[in-house]
């Protein structure tokens, strides 16, 4: 899977690094710091298909990032914690293709320092629930069988009932989770696409049906689950495709067990849109006209995105998702 593995030399005796290397069975190349190579030159995104490198490193600088109001009640602080850069999957709409200069993956191993930052931030809001999201810069479950950090974050939630961690994923790699006990404030959220669209645009990911099965498995084990229909992409009969997805979720008894369902119509920054055009010129994403919108992001027209969002929202309510649990993501809420 990995073309080359680079490890920061000061970490080579770190037990967590040793454990990862043992599982990978590949001789690493030692470097002083991951950023002496990673992202130094503009490596085209699709090179990840045949020359994806792995960097194991210590995250310096910002370990937590304050996020805008997202899911849940407005006013509750939301943070992203940064434990990795880049992703093994290849979703055609992924913003990572225009975010970093390279698709190479970095796994940060200084989780204790990240958790310290989380603890500090939690204490700065003494009377509030604080959200911590993983999965902003990488899938939060896909490589957990290698990295083994889940237990630390789980412990953090156990000790801090005011903190809620959301692990956002497209992975069905739930083995490590099942070993832990479920917690009310430890939520696993799955990004889902309609079955037919998912096959075309969510490349190298488990199918939406497999993700639903993983959700059922987690639910059976007492886990809190959530779903994201984001990005919603236009195709003929898109609403019927979402109804089919939601009906399947209902049949699997998922729709009335969601913590929340977030909805977002596809949108890109200008740079990411250019990358998507370059990397996936035949993608269905390009078959519907888009414009530069109110925030300079490239989106469908306002009527189109409101029409699509409402169609999917109605379908979700009809399938049994409570309307109070449906959140419209990154869209002016009018």
């Amino acid at each position: 899977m990995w073309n080359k593995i680079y490890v920061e030399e000061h970490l080579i005796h770190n037990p967590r690094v040793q454990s990862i290397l043992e599982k990978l069975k590949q001789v690493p190349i030692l470097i002083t710091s991951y950023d002496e190579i990673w992202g130094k030159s503009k490596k085209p995104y699709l090179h990840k298909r045949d020359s994806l490198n792995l960097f194991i490193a210590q995250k310096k600088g910002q370990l937590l990032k304050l996020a805008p109001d997202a899911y849940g009640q407005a006013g509750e602080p939301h943070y992203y914690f940064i434990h990795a850069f880049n992703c093994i999957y290849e979703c055609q709409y992924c913003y990572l293709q225009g975010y970093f200069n390279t698709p190479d993956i970095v796994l940060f191993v200084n989780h204790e320092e990240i958790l310290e930052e989380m603890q500090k931030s939690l204490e700065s809001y003494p009377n509030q629930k604080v959200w911590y999201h993983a999965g902003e810069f990488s899938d939060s479950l896909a490589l957990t069988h290698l990295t083994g950090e889940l237990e630390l974050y789980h412990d953090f939630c156990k000790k801090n009932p005011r903190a809620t961690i959301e692990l956002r994923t497209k992975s069905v790699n739930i083995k490590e989770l099942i070993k832990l006990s479920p917690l009310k404030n430890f939520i696993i959220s799955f990004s889902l696409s309609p079955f037919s669209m998912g096959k075309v645009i969510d490349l190298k990911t488990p199918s939406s049906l497999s993700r639903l099965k993983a959700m059922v498995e987690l639910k059976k084990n007492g886990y809190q689950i959530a779903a994201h229909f984001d990005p919603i992409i236009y195709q003929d009969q898109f609403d019927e495709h979402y109804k089919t997805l939601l009906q399947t979720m209902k049949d699997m008894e998922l729709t009335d067990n969601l913590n929340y369902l977030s909805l977002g119509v596809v949108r890109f920054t200008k740079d990411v849109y250019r990358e998507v055009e370059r990397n996936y010129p035949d993608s269905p994403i390009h078959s519907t006209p888009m414009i530069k919108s109110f925030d300079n992001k490239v989106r469908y027209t306002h009527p189109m995105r409101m029409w699509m969002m409402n169609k999917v929202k109605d379908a979700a309510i009809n399938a049994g998702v409570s309307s109070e649990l449906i959140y419209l993501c990154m869209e002016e809420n009018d």
Partner: protein
Amino acid sequence: MHLITMAHLGEAQGVIEYFNLKRITPHYFEGELLCCLITGEGPFEAATTTSHYLGQKKFNSVINLGIAGTLSDDFKVGEIYGVRSIYLIIDGKPQFKSFKSFEKGADCLTSFERIVSSQKANKLSGIGHLVDREAWGVAMAAKTCGVSFKCFKLISDVAGTIGACEIVRDNAQNGSLQLAQFLQNIIEDRPSEKNHTELQGFHFTVSTRHKFEQMLKKISIREAIEIDDVAELFNLDELREQKILPKDRTRLLLNQMENKLDPLKEKLESGLQKWKTPLEREGIFIQTDSTWESDEVKLSFSAKTQLELEQKIEILRNLKFKPFENLRNGNFNVE
């Protein structure tokens, strides 16, 4: 005319003889199909000499052809590979700017220094598959001058191994001939792409052609059909029968194509027109954002008398924004 760039005269000898090139200067050779430039070793040397010749004469493409050392077992000595991306390495470290030659192939590192130790080669092996001394400079010059760029490398040795330079020197003659024969194959003319705007009875300007071609592509994706088959989805004969100018016929065709791609376009346009018409009949004009992004509505009218002014203000007093808001919010099931 192609400009072939090669680092050394020894590598280029085969190309010069094979294509019967005439020596113009000690480093520049011309023929009917192509010219060959000996750039010298090193990215800066390659960039400056290539830029100089691109400024002297018009070339359709620049092809960098030459030898490289391999950093990967997947790229074998003695084989020629198309290069995918080219990176620059200074002091063993990658630099930001990279160039693309092909969608697939080997990634080449142009290094300022020769890679003679296995430790250095190992460190670079995660960044690229091959190492050379000039491709990045040639790519930089070609891209700056807006000339198409391609790069092919014959693998001469394993980078970082002892004696690599001797291997290269000993095999120079064979390699040179191999490169020349390879070049013959790649510069053969290819059939030109079909021009889809050659439609009888239609006239395309530069901008309408661009729009037409973009929509052809989008519709082919949406309908999952070939671009060549998209025109069959529209009744071109019916458009041809209309007694209108060819450019107006093109406008109608583009409009039909837009309607096919945008499921709401017709509904929005007719809804907006329905909202505007009663006011327009009274001489009051409404202008809205054509992209629907802004909710701002501009109203304009003129009045010649106090009475006319008051009548129009009265009409405006009764104007309802709700139909416009419903359209803008994608609510089509309400009146």
